[in-house]
C-alpha cells in the first residue's frame, strides 16, 4: 500500500523553476531514495512534504488522504542544514522539540531516555550543545527526529558529518525503523548507501524527475552489454582473439589473474565470446557488469543535460 504520494507538483521561486510536474509514491515500510545533483529541487520537494512551503500546483497525500497540518506529528524530519539551540541543555532541548511534535512531557522524557541509553549518550543529558562535537550533535539530532515514532521519516543527507562507525550505526537504525513499521524517504549523494538501503528511487535533475522506480530495475536498465572476464593467460592473445567481434573497454594485468572488460556489438552472444577465448586462456570468472548507482546517476544526469 502507498503510504505517501505527491502528485504533479510544480513550484516556482521568483525566476527559478524548482519543481516541474513531479510525482512520486512511496510504499509503506519501504525506503525511498531521492537523488539528484545539487540544486535539482530535492530540498524543495522535502520542504513541501513537511509543509514548510506550499506547492504552486499539485497535491500531497498521506495514507491516501490529503496531507493536513495535523499530520505534522506523523512525520519526522532531519534537514540537511542542522542545528540546535547552542545554549540549551541537550535533554531539555530534546524534550522541547519532542513536545512541539505533540508528545507529552512524560512521554518525551521516557522515549528520549531509551534512545539516549541505546546510543550510549546518557552522560550528555545535562550538557550544553556548544560543548559537544559536531558528530555528537548529529546523533542528538537523529534522536530528536525519530523520538515521536513518526510513520514517515524524511532524512536529508543523514550521513554527512558522521564517521564510518556512526554512519553504519545510523544505517542500521534506519533499517530497524523500517522493519518496525516506518516509511523512509531519504536524500543523499552517497550512492553506495542508496544501493544498500533503497527499495525505490527518484532521480531529479533541473526540477524534472528523470528516473523513477525500483533500484534494481533502474540499474538493470542502465546495463550496456558489458562483460567482465577474469582469466589466466596473455592479454595480447586475448586482444587478438576478441579482435573486431567485440569492443575491449578496459583491461588490467596483475600476472596471475588478469581482467578484461568487453562490450558486445550487435548480435553477440555469451557462447560466441567464450568460444573465442577458451582455446587461448583459462577462464576463472565471467559475469555481466551491472552499473553502480554512481554510474547510473552520472549517466542519467549527463544524458538529461544534453537534451
Amino acid at each position, binding site marked *: 500500500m502507498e503510504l505517501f504520494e505527491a502528485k504533479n507538483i510544480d513550484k516556482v521561486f521568483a525566476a527559478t523553476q524548482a519543481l516541474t510536474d513531479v510525482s512520486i509514491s512511496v510504499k509503506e515500510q519501504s525506503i525511498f531514495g531521492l537523488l539528484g545533483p545539487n540544486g535539482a529541487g530535492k530540498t524543495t520537494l522535502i*520542504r513541501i512534504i513537511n509543509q514548510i*512551503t*506550499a506547492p504552486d500546483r499539485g497535491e500531497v497525500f498521506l495514507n491516501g488522504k490529503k496531507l493536513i497540518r495535523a499530520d505534522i506529528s506523523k512525520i519526522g524530519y532531519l534537514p540537511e542544514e542542522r542545528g540546535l*539551540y547552542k545554549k*540549551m541543555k541537550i535533554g531539555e532541548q530534546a524534550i522541547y522539540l519532542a*513536545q512541539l511534535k505533540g508528545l507529552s512531557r512524560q512521554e518525551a522524557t521516557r522515549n528520549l531516555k531509551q534512545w539516549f541509553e541505546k546510543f550510549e549518550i546518557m552522560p550528555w543529558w545535562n550538557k550544553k550543545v556548544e560543548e559537544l562535537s559536531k558528530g555528537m550533535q548529529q546523533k542528538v539530532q537523529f534522536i530528536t527526529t525519530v523520538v515521536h515514532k513518526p510513520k514517515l521519516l524524511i532524512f536529508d543527507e543523514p550521513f554527512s558529518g558522521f564517521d564510518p562507525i556512526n554512519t553504519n550505526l545510523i544505517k542500521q537504525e534506519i533499517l530497524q525503523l523500517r522493519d518496525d513499521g516506518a516509511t523512509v524517504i531519504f536524500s543523499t549523494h552517497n550512492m553506495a548507501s542508496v544501493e544498500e538501503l533503497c527499495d525505490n528511487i527518484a532521480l531529479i535533475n533541473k526540477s524534472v524527475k528523470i528516473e523513477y522506480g525500483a533500484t534494481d530495475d533502474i540499474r538493470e536498465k542502465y546495463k550496456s552489454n558489458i562483460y567482465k572476464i577474469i582469466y589466466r593467460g596473455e592479454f595480447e592473445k586475448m586482444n587478438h582473439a576478441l579482435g573486431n567481434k567485440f569492443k575491449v573497454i578496459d583491461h588490467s594485468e596483475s600476472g596471475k589473474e588478469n581482467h578484461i572488460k568487453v562490450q558486445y556489438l550487435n548480435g553477440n552472444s555469451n557462447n560466441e565470446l567464450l568460444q573465442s577465448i577458451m582455446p587461448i586462456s583459462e577462464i576463472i570468472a565471467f559475469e555481466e557488469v551491472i552499473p553502480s548507482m554512481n554510474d547510473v546517476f552520472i549517466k542519467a544526469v549527463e544524458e538529461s543535460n544534453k537534451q
Partner: protein
Amino acid sequence: MNNTLLILKNEYLKRVKKKSFIILTLLVPFLFAGMFALIIFLSIHNDKKERTIAVFDESSLFLGEFEDEGYTKYHFVENEKYLELKKGLKESEFYALLYIPQNIYSTNSAQLVSDKQLPFELTEQIERKLSRFIENDKRQKVVDESGIPDLDEQLANTKTRIRLSTLKISESGEITKSSSMIAFIASYAMGFIIYFFVFMYGAMVMRSVMEEKKSRIIEVIISSVKPSELMAGKIIGTALVGLTQVAIWIVLGIATLVVVQGVFSPETTQQMGQSIMETQQQMNPAMAQAADQNQIMEVLEMIGNLNLPLILFAFVFYFLAGYLLYSSLLGAVGAAVDSEEDSQQMVLPVTFPLILSIMLLFPIAKNPEGPVAFWASIIPFTSPVAMLARVPYGIPTWELLLSMFLLVLTTVGAIFAAAKIYRVGLLMYGKKVNIKELIKWLRYKN
C-alpha cells in the same frame, strides 16, 4: 495554540534563567538605591566642614555684622594680619580671605581670596550677606531722610510675590487644580518608559529570531509549528520577560526604599529634609515660604487631579500596541538578515520613527496642542510615545480614538506583513536583503 504556549514557555524560561538577565534585573535597583543613598549621604555630610573666613573690612561698615552661618564662621582681622594672610593663606587656619574695600558702596564689589576652588554656596552666602546689609543701610537712609514716619513698614509691605495656580476646566465645567509642571514630568517620563521598553524588548525578539536562523534549528522548528505560531510565542514570551523584570524592579525598589529608610534613622532623614530646606532657603528665600505643608498637599491634590485611570489605560494600551508593532517588525528583520552586521542597516529604517518620537518628546511636552504634537500622536509609528506625552495634559476624545484606531490597524497590518517576511526569510540564506527585496517577498504566495 498549544504550540504557541510551548514556545512562549520555552522563550520565557530560557531568558529568565539567563545569568545576564538575573544580574541585570537584580543590579539595576541596587544601582538606583546606591545612587539615592549617595545623594542622601552627600547632602548630609556636605557642609559639616567648618570653615573660617578671615574678613578684612576696609570700609569699617560691617564690624560685628557678619553672623556665623551653619558651619561657616567669620573672623575680622586688621590690616597687618590681612597683608600677612594674603601671602601665607595656605599655612594659616583660615579657609578664605574676604576683602571689603573702602568704596564698596560705589563699586558694589568685594574680593574673596582662597587657594582652593571655592564652593558656589559659600560665595553666594557672602554675596547675600553683603548685598542685604548695604540694601538695608541704603533703605534706612532713604527712610530717615524722607521724614515719613512709617515708611519702613510701608516699603516692607510693597514686597510682592505672585503665585500662579493653574486651574483646569473639564468638559463638564468642573474646575480642578492642575499643574503644568507635574503634567510635564509625567508625560516625559511615560514617553521615555515606552520608548525604552519597546526598543529593548523588540530588539530581544529580533535577536532571538536571528539566533534560530543562524544556528539552523529553524527548519526543524517550522516543520513542527507554523511560523505564525512561532512568532506569536516569541513576541508574547518576550513581553512576559519584560513584565517580570519590571515587577521585580518594583518589588526590589520598594524593599530597598524601606531598607534605606531603616538604615538612615528617622533623625537623619529629618536632618536631611532640614538641610534640603536650608539650602532652598539660602538659595531663594521666597521659595522657602511656599515650601510648607500646604504645598505638599497641593502637589498630591494635583497628581490626584490628573486623569489617572485614563493615563493608566493609555499607558497599557500604547505600550502593548507599540511593542507588538515594533517587535513584529524587528522579528521580520531578524528573519530577513543573516548576520548581526546586516541587521544594523535594516534596524535603523524600522526604528527611525521611534527614535524620532523620542526626539519630539520635549517639543510635544512643551506644547501639547501644537501641530507637531497632533500629527506625531496621530501617525501610528510615532503615536505610542507621542500620544502618551500628551495624555496627562488632557486630550480631546476624538483624537485619542482616532490615534488608537490607526495604531491598531497598522499593528494588525504590520503583523501580517511581518509574518509573510518571516516565512520567506527564515529559510533564505546568503542573500543580501534590502527593502526592495522585502517588498518582493510580501508578494509571494506562501
